[in-house]
């Protein structure tokens, strides 16, 4: 006799969907900041197209999150309410994705470290017992495979490029590395959903992520920082709503119009 399927705990499920959606939403907003000022036209187009994919995925996750929240009682919220009318402490994205664009090496390094995790996570989520999550993940993973190919190519191109591009890529990896530990930190919310067969066990992805990242950085002649300190682990990071100062500034710009004109339509 098979064990009964454990019910998805609504509060945890909603929180998890916000984590998935907010990663895409916040990173898409960051990539959108490059519109019109990419280093070359092709990259201007590429980074905003990656942002477009991530925004589309965020809409799918946040729509689901809003439905889960509505089912567990008021207030009734939509994907737009979640995007535009939450403050930074209510956002559940990783600290990594809210970090400022910096120079192009910073943007590419942030993208690569995230993409390589994202593709592994979505691959596991295609096996989720929640068929809606599995369906969104199966759609998104195809897009993200392309993202990681591009960002890995650029890490190598810049890292193994000129002296100046190498120096910048090394500085970018040095600065962002401490935000990668949070990606694999499983807290009580994720543990409950992993046990229910709904969430992916992010901790189990770490060895594959590490070896994939190492292989690319080796080819890029970039070293992984020796300092093992990681920011945002121990249930005190972006996934729990504790953010760096950068997120509220990003949200101020992203949310200004709907907050000033709540009924605006175009």
């Amino acid at each position: 006799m098979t064990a009964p399927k454990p019910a998805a705990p609504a509060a945890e499920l909603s929180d998890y969907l916000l984590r998935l959606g907010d990663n895409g939403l916040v990173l898409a907003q960051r990539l959108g900041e490059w519109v019109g000022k990419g280093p070359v036209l092709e990259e201007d187009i590429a980074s905003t197209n990656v942002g477009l994919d991530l925004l589309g995925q965020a809409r799918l996750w946040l729509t689901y999150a809003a439905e889960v929240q509505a089912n567990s009682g008021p207030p009734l919220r939509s994907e737009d309410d979640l995007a535009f009318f939450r403050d930074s402490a209510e956002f559940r994205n990783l600290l990594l994705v809210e970090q400022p664009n910096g120079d192009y090496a910073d943007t590419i390094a942030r993208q690569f470290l995230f993409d390589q995790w994202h593709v592994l996570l979505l691959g596991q989520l295609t096996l989720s017992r929640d068929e809606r999550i599995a369906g969104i993940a199966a759609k998104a993973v195809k897009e993200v495979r392309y993202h990681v190919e591009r960002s890995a190519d650029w890490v190598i191109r810049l890292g193994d490029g000129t002296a100046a591009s190498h120096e910048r890529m090394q500085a970018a990896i040095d600065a962002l590395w401490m935000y990668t530990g949070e990606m694999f930190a499983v807290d009580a919310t994720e543990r409950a959903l992993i046990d229910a067969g709904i969430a992916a066990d992010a901790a189990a992805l770490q060895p594959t992520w590490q070896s994939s990242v190492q292989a690319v950085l080796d080819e890029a002649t970039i070293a992984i920082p020796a300092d093992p300190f990681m920011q945002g682990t121990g249930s005190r990071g972006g996934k729990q709503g504790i953010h760096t100062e950068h997120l509220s500034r990003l949200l101020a710009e992203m949310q200004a119009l709907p907050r000033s004109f709540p009924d605006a339509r175009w």
Partner: protein
Amino acid sequence: MVTTRVADPPAHDDATQPATRAAIWRALAGVVDPEIPTVSIVELGIVRDVARSNGAWVVTVTPTYSGCPAARIIEADIRAAIASAIGEDVRVVTALAPAWTTDWIAPEGRQKLRDAGIAPPHAAMHDGSTQPRSVTFRRPREAVRCPNCGSLRTTELARFGSTACKAQYRCTDCLEPFDFFKPH
């Protein structure tokens, strides 16, 4: 409002109103993707089902990419085309699973892409594996045939072209730049 679901389409009676059903498919064949206006949404494999459900016609479509900006316009165009063909409003439902693949682009669609100067995608590499590849960027790339002169001596200029679903290439024989519909 877009209804999103991932389950299979509801069971329906295929024998219902065959003439109307045929008229709906004919109308759908006239709806194009606004970003690739030479190819119909049927040829692109976006239309997954036409069904009669609870006394109304339901057209099931699937998005090409999650963030495709044309999705809303396509939905509006579908409703307008069918309303003018059969004088009845239809419901458009978006299904995410199974995820759209360029393998669903019909042969006529591929030829029309070529005629429009867009290299059609080769077979998408679906390994069916859920295991992540360790270093994805090493995936070998198949040569892309120039839609203008047919040469295989082409080179990628950029990973994205005029839309999210295309990459930018250049032919090193006829020297023309062109869009390549990414296998997806």
